[in-house]
């Protein structure tokens, strides 16, 4: 297999993904400028269908749905980023320790990883979120708790395969410390795949987080969280705009991450791409 020389920009899906993400990030940053109204102000008639003034209609207490969707980006995007980074950190550290030290440390950590993976993610997250109390912060924690093993697996595998590479061995022979080996010699080989995994996982994390909010285990009213907004829409099928727009917001944001992650995986060399798939 020859190496694919393409840059991510050449991949149409990656371009679409980056574009959508950029739009959402801009929306999140400039929400106060873009949003036609305060997302928690009950400024309008209740349950108005989309019209020239409220493009996405209004909700059951007269808030502008468009403004809430726009402000929702300020909740969902940073939280998704945060949980991806946290899961990545935790998973990488555990995977690195397991892969580098091997032996019983590896065995113990990997069994633990297996156990967490054996749990149905959503249900474990529900249990943890419920046990800690329905709050967005706890929901993020719950999602991190079920998301890190994927990274740990990947990092461990990558370390195992590159640990004995010549440059690492020689650096160790020269008396380099363990931390040096982990952070200087091995890091470049690991960071690429880990970031691709993070891009792929961001979408899943976002889905899980909004799912918890939908189930009433995440965001609290009156915050404009997309999952919670869909949940409100679930009480009013006839008022389709309540659920459809925040749902589309989740869909597009998750799709953007998945497009990006998928395209990034393709431009990694095939062996790493395979490691990612496993």
């Amino acid at each position, binding site marked *: 297999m020859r190496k694919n020389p393409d840059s991510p920009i050449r991949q149409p899906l990656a371009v679409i993904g980056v574009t959508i993400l950029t739009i959402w990030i801009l929306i999140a940053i400039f929400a106060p400028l873009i949003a036609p109204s305060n997302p*928690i102000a009950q400024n309008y008639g209740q349950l108005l269908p989309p019209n020239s003034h409220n493009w996405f209609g209004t909700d059951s*207490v007269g808030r502008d749905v468009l403004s809430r969707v726009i402000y929702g980006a300020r909740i969902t995007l940073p939280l998704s980023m945060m949980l991806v980074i946290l899961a990545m950190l935790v998973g990488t550290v555990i995977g690195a320790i397991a892969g580098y030290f091997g032996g019983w440390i590896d065995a113990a950590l990997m069994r633990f990883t297996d156990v967490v993976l054996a749990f149905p993610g959503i249900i474990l997250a529900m249990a943890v979120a419920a046990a800690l109390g329905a709050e967005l912060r706890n929901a993020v924690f719950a999602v991190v708790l079920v998301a890190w093993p994927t990274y740990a697996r990947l990092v461990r595998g990558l370390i195992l395969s590159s640990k004995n590479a010549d440059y690492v061995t020689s650096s160790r022979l020269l008396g380099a410390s363990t931390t040096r080996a982990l952070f200087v010699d091995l890091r470049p080989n690991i960071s690429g795949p880990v970031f691709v995994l993070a891009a792929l996982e961001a979408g899943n994390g976002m889905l899980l987080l909004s799912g918890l909010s939908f189930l009433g285990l995440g965001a609290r009213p009156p915050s404009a969280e997309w999952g919670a907004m869909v*949940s*409100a829409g679930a*009480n*009013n*099928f*006839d*008022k389709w705009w309540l659920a459809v727009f925040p749902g589309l917001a989740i869909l597009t944001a998750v799709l953007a991450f998945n497009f990006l992650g998928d395209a990034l995986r393709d431009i990694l060399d095939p062996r790493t791409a395979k490691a990612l798939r496993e």
Partner: protein
Amino acid sequence: MGTLKLGRNRLAAVAGALALVSSSFILQTTSSSAASGRVLVIDSEFNHKTLDPQREFEDGGNMMDRAIYDTLLTFKGNDASKPVPSIALSYNSNADSTVYTFHLRKAARFSDGTPLTSADVVYSYGRLKNIQGNPSSLMAGLTATAPDKYTVIITADQPDTAVPVKVAGPEFGIVNSKMVAAHGGYALVGADTKDKAENFLNTTSAGSGPYMLSKFSLTTEVDLIANPKYWGKQPAYSKIVIRNVTQAVQALDVQKGVANIALDLSPKQTDSLSGVNVTAGVSTTVWFLYSNANPTISSVTSDPNFQSAVRYALNYSDLTAFAGKGSIQAAGIIPSAFQGSLKPADATKQNIALAKADLAKTAYKGEPIGLRYWGGGAWEGISFDDFATVISSQLAAVGINLKLEPTPVGDALTTYRNGTDTMGLWFWGPDWPDSSNYSQNFGPGKKVGLRAGWAASAAPEITKLINAVAIESDPKKRAAQYRQFQLDLNANSPFIPLIQSPAILVSTKSVIGIATNPIWKVNLTELK
């Protein structure tokens, strides 16, 4: 979504009469021409926990038990204040309302053919009292005796003008005493541990009403079939299916004719429906806010000036607009249908200036005050989350900063009952349809009063009034006292009555004779 759907019992083992119906049964969901074999499908959010009449205390259970068990007296249509004869053909009471004598009809029979006698009434009432379940307080101070086979005498320790309306409640449903006793029922003192008949009553109906239970599940479906041995006129529908369906789906089902009646729709959900009948009325459910009067819970919320600030900061017309068509402002804690309720003119009106002035007298500095409510919950189509959101934004306008605390219903009820919440948003539906239900709960040191941190010694004037109204036998004087009680409450108490929710029934065009009743929502036996 909101209401709790709790556990569920094994599907009913369906015997005897059901086999006649079910084996050759053809499902009809929409209007049907044949009078016999008509099926009524009702969509509802299940909130019942049992169908044992002496244990159930929720309106879902009320509706079903009303159809299965007869009571001495009952109500007609949407009226819940004037009892009419049922098993008792007539009754009379002594002058000071302590002794009531009921004369029973002789034709009444249970579904197994056994005649209904005064012994069954005494057994049922005794069981209600001694089981010490949720509704047992209804029998507090009352004793039932049977001087002969067709006479029942109820004596009250203290004057109790509410006895006739109480016995019309489904909790006073009369069970077949022999049958229930044979299946673990126990009606004497000690029934709280000795009575084992609940499961039996969830699988088999032991009543004399027009319907019998044919299938019972706490989470999915309850089926009723017409009682072929019913002593009165056979009901119009031979089978009634009550399904557990979320509000949103109810709206779809009833429009498609999959369901004939939707019980839990809000006015806003109904305004866009087409091809259905909407029966609207005001319910007897009163929503209220409380600001805990216990200084150890909060020095802020216990300050009468703070309570007053909250009271005058609220925009009541916006609240009723939020609740939708059919809702009205609750002028006092007693709903409009009952004796002694306040006139709309007596209701609190928004006064921002006054609210700000009162707030200024307090030590409140804008710190967040927790408002506890049933997160995700909805009642009569009103979402707790939305309602709390509206209230918090109104209070924010005068500088009161609420921190919403949506909580699973079980936990929310616990802290509410323990009286540890700083503020709470709740509703009250009457246990029995009489104003006494309010004076005995919302006073200082009373059940709900204590939940709001209102100690018995807090307002001696009001306590005196409550004691006076309890023994007053003149209805006119009673009404005046109830009004005074509520005016006092509105002037200085932790309670702020908000609205009475609308009562709405949505039905397909085929359903005739539907009326909203505050006790059992809809009387299934009246439908045509």
